[in-house]
Every structure is written in C-alpha cells, then in structure tokens.
C-alpha cells in the first residue's frame, strides 16, 4: 500500500481540512417541476474522518455523495478538495475529463449492490480498466489485484466468479476494487444495506482498518443504529443538515 498523505496520529492536534462543502444546492428538473434535493449544505470534512451521512430514504444522502464525487453536476455552491493548499481543487469547476482524472486518483466508490461483473472472476473484476481520461490506459496489475484481495482476506477465492461467494465477500471485493488506485477518499452508499448484521461487522472492521491507514471514508446509511460506528455524523433531513456531530478524533487514535 502506498503512503496516504497524512497518518491519523497527528490529526487531533493538527487536523487537515480535506473536503469543504460550501452552500451545495442540487435541483433536479422533472416533468412534474423542479425538485430541490439539497438546499444549501455546508460542512468541513477532515482527513482521517469516518463520516456517516445518515438520513431517511429521499433525504438527499446519495445526492450529497454524488456532489462529493462529482458523479452528478451541482446546481450552485462549491465542493473544494484540499482547500487552502497547492492542490486545492474546486471539483465542479473541472472539465469532464479533468474531473474523471481527479476522481480516478482520489476517490474509491462502493455500492450497496456491489456492482461486480458476474462473468469476470474476482481478480479480473479488480483489474478492470480504470478510467483516467476516457481511455482504458491504466490497468491494475494482477499482483496488485491479488495484494488487494489479500487485504480483504479473499486471496483464496481470487479466481472464482462472484456467483460462488457470499454477499459479504462480494462487498469485500468491491472494497478491494475501490482501493485499486490507492485513493485517499472512499465513498460508500449503503455498503452494508444488503448484508446481515454479522457480515456488516466484517465490512466495518475493514473500514476501520482503512481509517487507521489515514484514509477518509464517507458512508451513506439510513440506519440510525450505525451512528456510533462513525467518528463524524451528519444527519440529513429534507435536503439539509439537521445536525453535525463535528470534527472529533476518538481517544484511541489520539493516544497513538
């Protein structure tokens, strides 16, 4: 694993602002008229945080995630990554190609329904071409794919098709794939939504390991009970932040 910029040890004293959401508004045009999914969201997210975006179905959680990855266009406002230093990027100001390159290097995406190609084995799923600029130039090496499968403890299944492994194992493969380019930011949309509690626990353990490495994870969930798992909770109601638990690095990490 390559080094990620900041390790969590020094975070409590010197938190690094990673993502700045400034008055983010998203309006969808529909046949029935305009629908405002996000009504001006502002928040500062720091490197090394495990952020839970919590809210009911339709609250705007996934839309907020799409604003952070640049998967969908913003109506107004700004999403700035690495604000205040040389690599500061206002991602919605980038061209489509530049945004794809930025995303490919900086963001790993995980979905509730895994989105693995069932006709490819696990290694091939991870080695799939990764988009940097609209071309399939960058393939992950087989060694790297196996190394990532090791990280999620699935190296013994490397050449199986997804049909032969469980839902929890599929999600671990999806996590391994999201790490292919060693991105500092992982976004996960209901990653435990189709898993039982015990299996969900194994996913959280991996996430916590990734946080220890200094990565930042932003996870959407409708499940309020998961709240204590996060180091930061954003409660979204009706397109707005209803409450924000604020930046806080847990004691265990501060003591390191």
């Amino acid at each position, binding site marked *: 694993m390559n080094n990620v910029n900041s390790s969590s040890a020094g975070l409590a004293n010197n938190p690094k602002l990673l993502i700045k959401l400034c008055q983010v508004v998203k309006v969808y045009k529909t046949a029935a008229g305009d629908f405002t999914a996000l009504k001006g969201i502002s928040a500062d997210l720091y490197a090394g945080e495990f952020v839970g975006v919590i809210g009911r179905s339709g609250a705007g959680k996934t839309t907020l995630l799409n604003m952070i990855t640049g998967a*969908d266009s913003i109506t107004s406002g700004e999403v700035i990554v690495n604000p205040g230093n040389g690599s500061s990027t206002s991602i919605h100001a980038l061209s489509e190609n530049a945004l794809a390159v930025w995303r490919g290097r900086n963001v790993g995406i995980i979905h509730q329904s895994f989105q693995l190609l069932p006709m490819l084995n696990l290694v091939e799923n991870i080695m799939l071409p*990764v988009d940097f600029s609209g071309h399939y130039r960058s393939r992950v090496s087989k060694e790297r794919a196996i190394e990532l499968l090791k990280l999620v403890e699935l190296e013994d299944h490397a050449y199986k098709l997804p049909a032969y492994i469980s839902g929890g194992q599929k999600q671990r493969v999806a996590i391994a794939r999201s790490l292919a380019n060693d991105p500092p930011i992982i976004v996960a949309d209901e990653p435990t939504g189709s898993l039982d509690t015990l299996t969900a626990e194994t996913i959280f353990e991996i996430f916590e390991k990734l946080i220890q490495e200094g990565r930042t994870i932003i996870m959407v969930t409708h499940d309020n009970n998961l709240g204590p798992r996060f180091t930061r909770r954003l409660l979204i109601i009706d397109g707005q932040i209803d409450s924000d638990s604020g930046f806080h690095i847990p004691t265990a990490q501060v003591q390191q």
Partner: protein
Amino acid sequence: MNSAYTPSLIQLRQVVKRFKNSAGEFVALRGVNVDIPTSEFVAIVGKSGSGKSTLLNMITGIDHPTSGEVLVNGVNIYQMTESQRALWRGCNMGIVFQFFQLMPMLTLHENTMLPMDYCNVFSPAERPERAMELLKMVGLEQQAHKLPAAVSSGQQQTAAIARAMATDPPIIVADEPTGNLDSRSSDEIIELFNRLVEQGKTIILVTHDPSITKRTLRTLIISDGEIIDEAVAQALPLLSHAKMLKVTHLVKRMEISPGGMIIRKGQNVDNFFIIVRGQVEIVLESSKRPEVTLGQLGPGEFFGEIELIHGGDSIASVRAAPDAPVELVALPHKDFAEMLVGSPLTEEALSRIVQARLAQNRSADRRTGWW
C-alpha cells in the same frame, strides 16, 4: 415437426444441480429438460427458491450442473475449460442483472465498451462508435457520458442492456431485470426486449412479475426444481405451482396419428385430455347423417371435462386433425376429481367452460336437425 430435425438454440438435458452446505444437501434442479429455439422470448417464473436463477446460471455457464448437459448452438458448454467458457460467454451471451452491475467509475459509454474490450471483438477504433450507437438505440445518447450514479435506475438498466448487446450476442439473459424498477421503466425495458426479439435475438428472463409474463412469447414455470408441463400450466392456470407440478407428474403422455380417433361419441370417458401439440377436431358423426364439425382445439386447450364433471358417455367424438399428429397429456378420472376438490377456483373456471360448451353443442345440434 421441424424441431425434431433442427436442434434448438439452447437445449438442457436432464440438468441436475445440488448444493451442499453445512445444513446438508439441497437439490435446486431435479433433471430439467428445456428446448429454446432461436428468436424466442421466454420468461422463467417461479417462487423464491424454486430454482429459477439456478436454471439461468446453468444456461449462462456462470454456475455448472452436477449432472446433465447444456448445449448452446450444438456446443456442450460444460466441456469447455473455465477460460474458454468465459470467452464463449462474452461472444454468445449478453447478461442483464437485477442490480445492473455497472462499473461505478465508468460512464455509461465506457461501461458499454467494456465487453468489446474484454472479449476483444470489434476493432479498438470501432468500439466507441458502436457503444454510442447502442446507447442511441436504447435512447440514452444524451446520458452517454454520465456516470451510473447520475442517471435513474431505469436508465441504468437500459444502459446495462446496451452493454449486454455490445458483442452482438445471439442470446440475452436477464435475471429479474425489472425487479428494481417502477412500472413505467419496466414497460420500457420489456418494449426494448420485444424489439430485440424482432431483430432475431433470443431472450430469456427470470421474473416474478405476472405483468411481464403476459408480454413474453412463452412462460416456463419452475417449481421445486422441476419445470411444469407447459400445456398443463396453460390449461389450468389457476392451480398453485405445487399442484401444477403434481398434475405434471400424474399425466400420461400420448401421441395420436393424423386423423386418429381419441374419444368416440357415446363411449365412456375416463381421462381429462390436454393438447400439447397439434389440433383436434370435435365432431358429431353418425351412420345416417353427414358429419358435423363442432370446432377445433389447439395446444393448451383441453377436452373430456364435460363427461368427467357431469358423468355419462361422450357427447361428441374427438379426433386428431387430418394433417398432423397430436400430442396429448391425459389425467386419469380419479386424479382429475382430486384436483378439482383441491382447487375450487379451477373447478369454478372449468364449470363455466362446460356450460359454454354444452350451450354451443346444443345449438349446433338444433341447427343440423339432430334433435
């Protein structure tokens, strides 16, 4: 029949699939035989756990049978190595999934190019244009450069179908393709499938949505790992799947040569007959008068129920049409009676048909001066 000489595009022969787990052994498929000719649009339906997705996985070669054979275009797909099969699959099957399985970091256009890249079909220079044409065909050219997250679920599934078409495979299989969509989006998906069938593609989909099976050419019902006889399912649609399967087990199969007599007027009737293939004629005949044909019945239709329900001898003769043999299944009297006791809905439906047929019979008799 032509089909006896031209093998079907897809043939399953005695396919058995057993799963072993910590709780023991589970038989998902119990010797399934299926023939699917080119350009059919087939729905596989069944309750959750009936074996429908397993059946689909046998056809795509994503899973493998415990015993039995699967032939696609005459090729036994389980005699290939895993990697040969992967390549074969890429060229011959487009697969569509309930949860789309689009790569989240790639645009719809890039997702559509993926199979061509992976199977190395069409030249690299052709691929972007072909992907765009496919997206145009499914009405997504405006969304082509968006990521899956930025379009609706229906659009994601539509893109997944475009991707399934990328290598121009003759067969498309889809597992609950509309299971996650609203009714309007699923209508559009089925409409798209219909267009592909018109272009000569063969489509097999697993679904539990009855509004979809109405729009496919053929429905295979699977119950407890077995396929229900299609004629039984057509003739007795109000039976539960478990009861249809029981009838499938109880019937005797018969073949009658062209023009052959099945029931003679005035004789005792001791079976309920369902037509599997061919046509039968219902006729009133006598040595004194000219013969009167009351009607013709075809596949999925039945006869014999009047006498079994009302008692008494046959009120008309039934024989195979003169031009082709007839294949029938026959349910013995005792089993027919038990079936009606077990399914009041079926009894009610059959009674209505009996009344209608008796009325038709009487009016035909009066017209021809029989009475």
